[in-house]
């Protein structure tokens, strides 16, 4: 799968990150090699394999529906820049 520098810049924009042309070029190459690897997995013919049949072997990981209070609220919000009472205060957000 061909990955262009523009693809990298588009994803970077969505992720609110910025890269130099050089960095983006390097990343395009890395993306491409990772995705090529996935493509080779995609080539396996799995049409006669039904995932539902394998679910017997899988174990669900779940927790009980029980509540607990996280006690140290001060620590929890220690990185918040500004609070108004217990609300987090940020610059006005318009839609």
């Amino acid at each position, binding site marked *: 799968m061909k990955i262009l520098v523009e693809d990298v810049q588009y*994803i970077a924009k*969505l*992720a*609110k990150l910025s890269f130099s042309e050089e960095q983006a070029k390097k990343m395009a190459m890395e993306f491409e090699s990772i995705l090529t690897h996935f493509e080779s997995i995609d080539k396996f013919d799995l049409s006669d394999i039904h*995932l*539902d049949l*394998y*679910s017997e072997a*899988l*174990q*669900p*990981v*779940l*927790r*009980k*529906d*029980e*509540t*607990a*209070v*996280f006690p140290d*609220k001060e620590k*929890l*919000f220690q990185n918040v820049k500004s609070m*108004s*009472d*217990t*609300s*987090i*205060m*940020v*610059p*006005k*957000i318009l*839609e």
Partner: protein
Amino acid sequence: MSFETVIGLEIHAELHTRSKIFCSCATTFGAKPNANTCPICLGLPGTLPVLNEEVVNLAVKAGTALNCHINKLNKMDRKNYFYPDLPKAYQTSQYDLPICKGGHVDIEVDGMKKRIRLNRIHIEEDAGKLIHLEEQPVSLIDYNRVGVPLIEIVTEPDLRSVDEAVTFLRTLKAILEYGEISDCRMEQGSLRCDANISMRKTGQDTLNTKVELKNINSFKELQKALEKEEKRQRELYTFGEESKIKQETRRWDSAKGKTVPMRTKEDAHDYRYFPEPDLVPIIIREEQIVSIKESLPEMPAQKKERFARQYGLTEKEVDIIIGDKALSQYYEALVLLGAAPKAAANWILGDILRLLKEKELEADLIPVRPDALYRLIQIIAEGKISITAGKEVFEAMFITGKSADAIVEEKGLSQISDSVELEKIVEGILDSNPQSLKDYAAGKTQAAGFLMGQIMKASRGKANPQVTKELLDSKLKERLE
């Protein structure tokens, strides 16, 4: 040329769990801002989410009640976007393997039954709440709602009118309520709805450009928002200007009473969905589905049929009572105590609904318990107070929370059925109205009516009319002999 409306709905319902979807924070509404938060729901680095088993149970229950296929193997995905109500910068949701596929809901509009197909139901987490302060340059964030479990129910574009859409939402709400899947408090945002609406020439089966309406929190808003948008699109089609309809998202602004554009699809977010690496796939066993199916309580459609048959109520009466789970429970409690089915329905459809509306209360907050109302019904049946007085007593019970007996006593409303006391009054009136007595003897029967009025007046309305009438008749007879 005629046009038809094509509507599809996406409904978000908060699931009825004690704790959040991936952590143990409580889901209670109305807590102090950010009281129900922890490192997991705030998405702090180094934390791991673990799925709440009750979320799976309730989603399967919803799927069962809505006739869906349950995907025994399904998984969570990350939906990435930046917005301050989402501390992780992604919402954990389901993309290509949702917990339920297909399904349907049967609705009835103007006596016509119609099946509305569902596309899917998936589970996801709710986002936080932003409070925009009017006169200050800041917004406040409350993350209590972050991680509250939701199901999103997506319909096929099968709805053909605003009425059908509203009826569908009502029917769905009742199913979720009766199934104890969600508490569906629209005013608290635990049931919300987005609507997609487009128009086409009648008979076509293409889907034209649709407009998405978001942020709908009540039936009235759904109705108004859809009606406005339907009218706008219909006019554009009628004048051949349908190209002016843009694929866009409009937000219902309840204060302005109209929809306002939110964002166009051109610059819509690319959500870059990918499988959630912190969670293992969700596995549902056949036994689990069977046991959930068996535990499903009576659904509104069955209840409706039973109410009509068992209690002999009219369709309209049944619709109103069943339409609200709390009302139907109240009704059955009342009947179970011994109230006549028709009388119980009259109390609910009359005074109870009127007072709930006046006091702006929901039906699960009726301040008079069914046994307290039943006591009042008994007092009336025994002839201790009149029906009119009974209504007055009920209103006082509703407001003060006092018992029927206490209010009857306080207001001195009990009817005089005691014959000794009544006899004194009747004799007194007959003694002081000799002319009426003469008129009566002369065959003027309306004189008896006058005397009856005098007695009621003397007793200040407390004389039991039935007993008084009998007593007066016999006394008149005695005096004429």
